[in-house]
């Protein structure tokens, strides 16, 4: 059986088991709705969920682009300057440790309830993995390459563009993939702090009415968005870095 068929069979089997358990054990819908109820909710509110999905995707993409851009730029600066390394890295670790749910209300006060606080939270979530991975990639240079460049009196920028940057690409993509998944979380946290649209906003409305099937429907749509965006980065990685394609060691 091919890999995709195994995955499909596992998902379908899991859904059938879930449906059967909910029905047999009479689990109340407010605790855990059956997959059929979630599917019905998606069908009933597909037009609302589509609009919400558009808003959330928009926030994820913009916030991610902002966070990844800042993360990459900081990584380059950190690589070039030890002083900046000692300033930026501890600050980056601190921002990662601080629970975003705790600071999100402050973002609403600082930036209002529009797009800005959502972008700020989303970007904040995405910066750290991109920064950390980019730094790891940029500083990991084979000693022989460095010696070769030193022997021909190559400039610092030549070393950077010819060796460090290409060498960091697999690390950069690893950071982008982690950053993208965190950006999805960031957009939802941002919407929970105040929004007129979006899947996070829809979850709050549904939850306030104990409409748990719609909460799950929103989660399912959100998961699909996250998977597609993650897949796009993986696809770009595959297209641009054939050398680093994964080789499975599992039989």
């Amino acid at each position, binding site marked *: 059986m091919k890999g995709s068929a195994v995955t499909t069979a596992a998902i379908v089997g899991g859904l059938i088991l879930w449906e059967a358990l909910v029905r047999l054990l009479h689990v109340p819908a407010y605790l855990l709705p059956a997959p059929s109820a979630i599917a019905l909710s998606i069908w009933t509110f597909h037009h609302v969920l589509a609009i919400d999905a558009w808003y959330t995707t928009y926030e994820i993409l913009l916030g991610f682009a902002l966070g990844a851009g800042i993360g990459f730029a900081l990584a380059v600066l950190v690589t070039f300057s030890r002083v900046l390394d000692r300033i930026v890295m501890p600050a980056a670790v601190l921002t990662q440790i601080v629970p975003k749910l705790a600071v999100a209300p402050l973002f609403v006060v600082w930036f209002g309830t529009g797009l800005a606080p959502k972008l700020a939270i989303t970007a904040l979530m995405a910066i750290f993995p991109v920064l950390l991975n980019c730094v790891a990639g940029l500083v990991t240079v084979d000693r022989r390459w460095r010696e070769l460049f030193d022997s021909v009196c190559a400039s610092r920028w030549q070393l950077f563009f010819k060796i460090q940057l290409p060498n960091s690409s697999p690390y950069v993509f690893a950071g982008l993939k982690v950053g993208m998944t965190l950006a999805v979380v960031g957009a939802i946290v941002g919407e929970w*702090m105040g929004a007129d649209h979006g899947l996070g*906003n829809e979850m709050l409305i549904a939850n306030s009415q104990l409409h748990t099937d719609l909460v799950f429907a929103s989660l399912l749509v959100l998961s699909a968005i996250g998977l597609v965006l993650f897949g796009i980065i993986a696809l770009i990685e595959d297209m641009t870095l054939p050398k680093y394609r994964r080789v499975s060691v599992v039989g």
Partner: protein
Amino acid sequence: MNRIGRYLSGATGVLLAAIALCSGGPAADAQPSSLSQVDFLQAYVPSSEFVYFVVADKKGYYKQAGINFTQHAGSGSANTVKVVGTGEYPIGLADAALILAGEQSGEPIQAVMGFYNTTPSSVISLKAARITSLQDLVGKTLASEAAGSTTPMWRAAMIAAHVPADKVHWVAIDPSAKVPSLLLGKVDAILGQLQPIQIEAQGKEVNIVPLGDVLHVIADTVFVNTAWLHKPGNDRVLRGFIAASLKGMEYTKDHISEAVDLTNAEYPTLSKDVLSKQLAMEHHWIWTPDATASGLGKMDNQHWQNLEKILLEAKILRGPIAVDTAYTNAYLPAQLPH
């Protein structure tokens, strides 16, 4: 193209796509208008509190008052007070307790119209628990959120009812976990507002002990950013907004089914049945005997004083506050709905 070039072109493509999205994105929906724009920030996500304002909008009351009205979801009264205080929104709806706390913190805000004229908070329990009075809570487990004014209100109600609150096992709980916890028997009672509708929807009977039976306080009110208010012409806009909103509230009282339909058209995921039941409950918090006698929207000084006293005892307020300047009835229309 070498690998770096491909990588950079890929990254550039993503950024260009993001910028393209930005230029045609959902935020770009503002339209020029000769009407005065009023952005109204609610206390929370869409629910029955939105209905009255949706009705006023759809019936054209705001347009008649020269207002282009837009309603926005909030994320709790505390945030609404802060955001209106920053001036991003001129008008909002929030718990009066947090308006007082905001004023003490120096927020440039003032309450201008009563909305809930009694506290909507109640002790809610399953019928089987036989909690029909505050006295019945002794020895039982009660759950409510740690933040906000609901729990201090309950403590004040216990004092007013001469029942020792320390004989009740109170536990802090996330608001979204209150109803499931009660239904699963994890707690005996919860403090809440509209939760009985959710509980009854699960086929369970409910006992409600309204805190408003023993507490006479103002609750949710419409408030403004005073810096916005003092700009030329905005007092006229505010008067128009309040008059139109009160008309919406009065129309809703007499046309619940139509009001629910109008709101559902605006917010399709809100259940019509739930909205109707929420409006029926809210009716008692809005159309109180006091509000009916003095006119809807008019705020009672004694109710503000009582609220201040509770907040001082709960240490939500750091010290006494000039309640007389915390609110004003000056922008209400001469003829109020009764």
